């Protein structure tokens, strides 16, 4: 069996995941991870799947596309490659929030800063409602980077854009929103 990562984008309707899953099952494939979201009426899906060695990338893409209407699904298929050891770092997870009046360039400046400090984005949501911009990002701050320094630099960035910026350790959210014992969080980290 060979591992592939594939993405599907389409206008949202009922049954897209079923269509994709049945196409992959038809190829004798086994889905191992799925993440799906709908935003502004558009559906996106990222899947990790194992398929028999003889199946090609093209076959997988076409099998999925055939399940939709003409040009309905935009499909990308890539062979899975493990993250190189050089890119695996010890890091701690933080949640970054930015809230304030919507302006051009906020995401650009914030992410520019994160990249410059070698901080990876693991999860990202942002939306604008009634002119108010809300951004919620899960980031990994690598060992050796001072979270408190990052916090104050992000706050200065927030001042420039008149945004309220908060950077909080993941453990705080887990401790206050999950019912598992706090000591479990400590053991995990």
């Amino acid at each position, binding site marked *: 069996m060979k591992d592939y990562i594939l993405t599907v984008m389409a206008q949202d309707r009922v049954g897209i995941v079923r269509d994709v899953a049945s196409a992959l099952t038809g190829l004798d494939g086994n889905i191992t991870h799925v993440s799906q979201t709908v935003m502004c009426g558009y559906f996106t899906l990222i899947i990790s799947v194992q398929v028999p060695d003889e199946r090609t990338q093209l076959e997988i893409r076409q099998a999925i596309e055939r399940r939709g209407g003409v040009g309905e699904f935009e499909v990308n298929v890539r062979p899975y490659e493990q993250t190189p050891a050089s890119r695996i770092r010890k890091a701690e997870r933080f949640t970054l*929030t930015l809230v304030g009046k919507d302006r051009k360039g906020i995401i650009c400046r914030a992410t520019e800063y994160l990249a410059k400090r070698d901080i990876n984005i693991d999860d990202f949501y942002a939306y604008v409602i009634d002119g108010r911009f809300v951004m919620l990002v899960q980031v990994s701050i690598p060992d050796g980077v001072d*979270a*408190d320094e990052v*916090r104050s630099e992000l706050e200065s960035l927030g001042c420039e854009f008149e945004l309220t910026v908060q950077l909080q350790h993941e453990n705080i959210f887990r*401790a*206050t929103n999950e019912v598992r014992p706090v000591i479990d969080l400590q053991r995990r980290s």
Partner: protein
Amino acid sequence: MPGFEETFQTIEMLQSEHLDVRAVNMGIDVFDCADRDIDKACERIKEKIVRCASPLLGACQRVSRRYGIPVVNRRVAISPIADVMAGHGTDDLVQLAHALDEAAEQAGVDFIGGYSALVQKGMTVSDRALIDSLPEALSQTTRVCASVNAASTRAGINVEALLLLGRILREIAARTADADGFGCCKLSIFANIPEDNPFMAGAYKGIGEPETVINIGVSGPGVVKSAIEKFRRSGCCRGLGDIAEQIKSTAFRVTRCGELIGREVAEAVGAEFGIVDLSLAPTPEVGDSVGEIFQAMGIDKVGGPGTTAALAMLNDAVKKGGAFASSSVGGLSGAFIPVAEDAVLAKAVEKGYLTLDKLEAMTSVCSVGLDMIALPGDTSPETLTALAMDELAIGVVNNKTTSVRLIPVPGKKAGERAVFGGLFGESPILGIRNNTSNAFVTMGGRIPAPLVSLNN
């Protein structure tokens, strides 16, 4: 990643509602430092405190930076000094109080508790010496806090000790007259004193506690007030049970933050993690008041009818949320009503809504007791004893902790203002009615332990 709502709820709790870790308290056993030679004893106790507690500052700063939650106070609680220093006289104890003060300063801690005696059933020679040393010890030091356990459900009330403490309170006040009797703010008199309480002035390291232990005091009246206000505004409130649920879930979240920080600090300093004590402990700052919680619940005039019921519900909901959050909940865990330290309560006293009698009734359903109560400077020692007896009786009979921190303010009368400064706040002086029970009080002796069965 948690959802949007949970994320922003948590952030609000941390940033705009004054959630902080009120006290990181390190309990240190000092029995191994006892010595017949007072100089040696002082040196050994001081060395141990400085050695054990010095890493606290760095550890608290690191954890505080990591989580963006301020740790307001660092404190030390030591084994009860009357027992550690058995065989020493009053002068020796005063010398030790100075050594403790210096140790606290060198270790970078705000207060040191444990200048204490446990006399619920009777006083030893050392207990008596410690109590006698209090006026000098508390007036000559800044960081030393004292406590005396003068009653318990198992032993009853030691009236003899309370009579002595009535006189001692007046003496402490006289020696700190230029600061409105501030020395008395550093002495709590208890019934059923907890061994793991992280809050001052009553913190000491109990005999059954480990060598070194970290106990955490978290507060957050602002968080609870804000949760109640938001919930009432949402229009979802269908009754007081719903309010209790809101308090409970808020208490859960606050306690969990405390435990997280406490465990990390304990690991960093190589001490055992003891307990987290979620007590709604107010400060004089606006937005950090238990009185404001009453107002959020709909009681405009704190002290009016309904206040005791509201406090009972609040205290119970805080305990339930805390108990579900962690198996390591201890100390006092409830709501405090220290008048001088809470701007809204102090205001209610000034307006005449909140009286000493009502405060006493309220303490039967919450943590601590008649706490930070400024009284007329000419209140007789016997009346101070009688007030303490009433309060401790509530604790003894109801099998709970109660305490008094009474300050007879020298030269001032009811209605005048006492100013203690900083976290100790300020308050109008409360009047005492019908203080004519001297004959009862001066009989002394001990009120026997209450029956703990047939309790219908």
